[in-house]
């Protein structure tokens, strides 16, 4: 079967359990088992090739530019691990079917389990190390889901997050390491990388790569100092613990060390780091395991310890060490999975995993007792069980390993580790199964059905088989070892047998077992010492670190983003000024190319006015109405400046916009407080002044710089001046630019206005349909209002002036193409004319008589402008291409007809609609505050019939 299929089957199969959830537990487990089995068989179909020493390779490109491809490779090592993963997987699935209770969502469980299985198979079959990373992180994710499977348990959630954080960190480090490795080797394919031992080990990047990769491996395999997450992962259901945290996932790190052994091992760095980490883990794990009362915790730390043992073996860098490691991986997988499942059975039956509440189970659960005892004794290193064989090899290897120039260090530690290992194994057997039957188990224990004890029993058969007949395993182990060693070393000649003679390893082994027994007899006093001894609780430390990082990040983020706009703006201003200053100070500056133009008294007076109004605004800004008046002056002076500097169009636009803006602001100020309170401290104001002066100074310098220099070459506006009349049909070049050369800008601009109006309208609607409505209805003016809402003089005058204003607007519109003016200014003027009418007789009275659909006017304006632009498509010209002609209709003089005028009409309509819709929206807010609408255009009118009941009241409404 194709390797793709072997990897893909679990992933594809992961879709099934969820679907089968409703079909019952049996179906759910069954489909999962079938999928796994299919993959397992698929793997086995490749066995002949592997046995023949071939490396099965296959691949498709995924992201070839990066070198990330779905390249798979199957050699002895991969086969070995895949076999473990799929084989134990099958047992675990069977076991889990009976382990999980009816409350548990089995579909979800098996989905996650299959995802995990696929990811694990992916790791061990990847040829591409980037692909390997993908699977690597996927195992972290699926294990996160599996550990947190019982979501209601806090321990599960915390354990899941801790595992994810630690293995995630390792995964990220691994990404770095792998990328470096691939870059050194020039390929991310293992088959290439493994050929480049010298290149890699001589690279200056070897050490960072090694450290990062080892970080990944150590975290995944719970090596010291990252061992602490594993016990907390035991919050997962037992099948998960057995599968992930003893048999497979934690071995991913071991696998990777083995996989990269040919290119990474053999250097002093590798030796020191890996061997010492392994040793420490081995001893530490064993010691901690002894004192754990939770069966699964005990087993978890024993796993840590044994993983340390394997790591240490890989660290020695010798071929023998590697072979011992491979052998122990196999042995450990068999006895540990069996133990986990036994622990699960005990838990399942007795409803507790606490050793102190157990004992005497030998009589109640004989089958389980046999299975667990055989497995535990194997772990303790008792002869005729497979654990003994690999442990012997380990001790042998330890005898030849000299760390830190201290020959006794490694052997001694190895013995201590083995001693404690034996002790906790004996404790497991003794305190759980031996002794008297108790009468206070939380539930009555008895052996479960075959479904649950069958899988561990099968494993124990293997334990015994290999233990008694190691030669059965030898060829396979050597095959795997050959794959580990690659071309870096030869497979050792050593034979696997129970009896090697009276070699030092045997004495060490005996010492360990005997010592273990002695330690167990001293367990009670030792436990007291252990409990009394202060020791760092890794989980507490981890949680403290996380809590500290969270509160640190909160301090940083909430301190930085405290919602104070003034600070945001100040930071922006400082940043911009600083960047501008940096750009200035690192550049070169040449002499001015333009000479300044002389300024007379009047210009200086104008400047003084502007500056005075601006400064007045700053000093008096707390009085809001006054600041509006002052900003009116600023606008007026800027407009005059535009006139002075030959920009009449701009001046007109500026002044009309100014007035409409002030009307808007006055409408808003009606609701807002009339004064701005003093809130900021003097220090703050000094800071603000400093920021403001820096920004102002910078703009001054920049403006002055440019004003005294010419552009590098002729500005494009030369073309506009030259072709405005010829091509645009207008003599007002600014207007021709707006409606023709750059009509697209103007199209966008009227859309901005249209959106502004729609937005204002929509917000008004929302406000008036929400809680604000009540507030507006109950609103009182903040000061008494004068009588005479619609003064007679104003009304009478408006009747004459408003039509004149409209006429002027029309005039400005028509002439815009050739003289200052245009649709935009005309639109504003017409709007202001209508506003005059509103101000004179009130919004209600005015709009009751003639109400324009301002939405429609905006829409029509944009559509007219847009359709004018589209019109040119029909003569096969681009959007907004203009055309014009001259027409003569008596008695009128010859006049110009230009499509640009139609466009300008769109502009005009959009502006009128937008301004009026906005003003209308604002005044709708205000109208909620009033009850009565006036029925007359003016409040006081002596010519009205006094008998008329609708005649004006004396009350100033």
């Amino acid at each position: 079967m194709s390797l793709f299929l072997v990897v893909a089957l679990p992933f594809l199969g992961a879709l099934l359990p969820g679907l089968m959830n409703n079909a019952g537990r049996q179906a759910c487990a069954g489909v999962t088992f079938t999928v796994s089995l299919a993959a397992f068989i698929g793997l086995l179909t490749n066995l002949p090739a592997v046995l023949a020493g071939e490396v099965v390779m296959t691949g498709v490109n995924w992201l070839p530019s990066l070198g990330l491809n779905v390249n798979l490779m199957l050699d002895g090592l991969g086969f070995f691990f895949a076999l473990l993963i799929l084989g134990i997987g099958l047992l675990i699935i069977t076991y889990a079917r009976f382990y999980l209770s009816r409350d548990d969502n089995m579909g979800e469980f098996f989905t996650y389990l299959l995802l995990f299985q696929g990811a694990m198979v992916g790791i061990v079959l990847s040829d591409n190390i980037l692909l390997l990373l993908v699977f690597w992180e996927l195992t972290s994710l699926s294990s996160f889901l599996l550990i947190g499977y019982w979501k209601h348990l806090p321990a599960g959630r915390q354990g899941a997050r801790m595992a994810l954080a630690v293995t995630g960190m390792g995964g990220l480090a691994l990404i770095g390491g792998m990328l470096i490795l691939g870059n050194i080797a020039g390929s991310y394919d293992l088959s290439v990388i493994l050929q480049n031992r010298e290149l890699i080990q001589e690279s200056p990047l070897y050490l960072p790569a090694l450290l990062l990769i080892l970080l990944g491996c150590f975290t995944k395999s719970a090596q010291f100092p990252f061992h602490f997450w594993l016990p907390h992962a035991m919050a997962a259901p037992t099948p998960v613990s057995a599968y992930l945290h003893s048999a497979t996932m934690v071995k991913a790190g071991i696998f990777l060390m083995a996989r990269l052994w040919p290119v990474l091992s053999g250097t002093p760095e590798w030796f020191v780091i890996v061997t010492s980490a392994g040793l420490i883990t081995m001893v530490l794990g064993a010691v901690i395991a002894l004192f754990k009362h939770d069966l699964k915790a005990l087993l978890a730390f024993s796993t840590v310890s044994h993983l340390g043992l394997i790591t240490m073996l890989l660290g020695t860098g010798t071929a023998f060490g590697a072979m011992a490691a491979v052998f122990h991986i196999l042995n450990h997988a068999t006895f540990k999975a069996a133990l986990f499942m036994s622990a699960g059975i005990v838990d399942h039956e007795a409803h507790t995993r606490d050793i102190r509440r157990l004992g005497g189970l030998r009589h109640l659960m004989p089958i389980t007792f046999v299975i667990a005892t055989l497995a535990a004794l194997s772990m303790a290193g008792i002869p005729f069980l497979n654990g003994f064989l690999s442990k012997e090899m380990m001790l042998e290897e330890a005898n030849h390993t000299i760390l830190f120039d201290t020959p006794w260090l490694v052997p001694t530690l190895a013995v201590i580790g083995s001693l404690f290992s034996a002790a906790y194994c004996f404790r497991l057997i003794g305190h759980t199964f031996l002794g008297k039957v108790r009468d206070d188990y939380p539930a009555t224990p008895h052996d479960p059905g075959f479904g649950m004890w069958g899988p561990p029993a099968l494993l124990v058969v293997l334990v015994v088989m290999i233990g008694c007949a190691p030669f059965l395993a030898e060829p396979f182990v050597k095959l795997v070892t050959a794959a580990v060693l690659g071309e870096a070393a030869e497979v050792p000649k050593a034979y696997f047998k129970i009896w090697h003679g009276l070699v030092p390893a045997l004495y060490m082994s005996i010492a360990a077992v005997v010592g273990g027994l002695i330690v167990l007899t001293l367990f009670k006093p030792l436990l007291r010492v252990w409990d009394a001894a202060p020791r760092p609780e890794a989980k507490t430390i981890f949680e403290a670190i996380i809590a500290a990082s969270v509160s640190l990040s909160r301090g940083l983020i909430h301190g930085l983003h405290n919602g104070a706009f003034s600070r945001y703006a100040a930071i922006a201003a400082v940043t911009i000024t600083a960047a501008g200053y940096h750009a200035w100070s690192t550049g070169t500056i040449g002499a001015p190319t333009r000479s300044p133009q002389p300024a007379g008294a009047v210009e200086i007076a104008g400047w003084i006015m502007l500056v005075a109004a601006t400064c007045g605004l700053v000093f008096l800004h707390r009085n809001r109405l006054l600041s509006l008046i002052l900003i009116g002056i600023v606008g007026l002076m800027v407009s005059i400046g535009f006139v002075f500097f030959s920009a009449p169009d701009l001046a007109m636009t500026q002044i009309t916009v100014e007035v409409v803006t002030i009307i808007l602001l006055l409408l808003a100020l009606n609701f807002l407080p009339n004064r701005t309170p003093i809130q900021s401290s003097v220090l703050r104001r000094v800071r603000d002044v400093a920021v403001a002066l820096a920004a102002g100074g910078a703009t001054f310098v920049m403006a002055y710089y440019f004003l005294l220099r010419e552009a590098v070459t002729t500005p494009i506006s030369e073309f506009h001046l030259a072709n405005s009349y010829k091509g645009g049909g207008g003599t007002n070049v600014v207007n021709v630019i707006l409606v023709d050369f750059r009509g697209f800008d103007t199209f966008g601009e009227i859309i901005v206005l249209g959106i502004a109006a729609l937005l204002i309208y929509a917000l008004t609607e929302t406000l008036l349909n929400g809680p604000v409505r009540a507030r507006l209805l109950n609103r009182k003016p903040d000061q008494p209002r004068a009588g005479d809402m619609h003064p007679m003089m104003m009304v009478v005058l408006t009747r004459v002036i408003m039509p004149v204003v409209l006429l002027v607007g029309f005039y400005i519109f028509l002439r815009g193409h050739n003289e200052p003016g245009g649709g935009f200014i005309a639109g504003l003027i017409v709007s202001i004319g209508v506003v005059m009418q509103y101000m004179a007789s009130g919004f209600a009275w005015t709009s009751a008589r003639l109400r324009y659909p301002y939405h429609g006017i905006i829409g029509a304006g944009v559509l007219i402008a847009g359709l004018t632009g589209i019109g040119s498509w029909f003569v096969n010209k681009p959007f907004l291409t203009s055309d014009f002609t001259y027409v003569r209709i008596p008695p009128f003089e010859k006049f110009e007809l230009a499509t640009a005028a139609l466009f300008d009409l769109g502009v005009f309509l959009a502006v009128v609609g937008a301004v009026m819709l906005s003003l209308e929206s604002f005044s709708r807010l205000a109208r909620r505050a009033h009850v009565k609408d006036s029925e007359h255009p003016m409040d006081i009118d002596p010519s009205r019939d006094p008998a008329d009941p609708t005649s004006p009241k004396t009350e100033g409404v």
Partner: protein
Amino acid sequence: MSIEVIGTYAVAICLLIGAAFALIGTIGLLKFNDSMTRLHAPTKVGTIGIGALLLASMIHAHVFADGSMHELLIMAFLFVTAPISANFIAKVNIHRRSCDAPPPPPKDDTWSTLNVPEADRELAEPEKV
């Protein structure tokens, strides 16, 4: 003396008159010490001042170019709107009590500006702006 020369002098004189009135009006604005009194100075003197300047512009156009009448429009505009502006500012002064209280009207109850709506009468007096 040709018509151009006379026109030129006329322009100059109109300019001086206009500018002088504009300045005088503003001096009044600054000098008088009561809001209502101040109102007199600029609204009128200024209007005439600008009127003279516009006249100067018209004459100038007739002397140096082919004539111009549209300054009349601006003049008319200013003349028509000035009373309204003054009326509103006066109302503001009365409403804000920034002048002497006016005597009561002989025919009606009160002045329209002082006819504060019932609902607003209990509100505090406006703060000075």
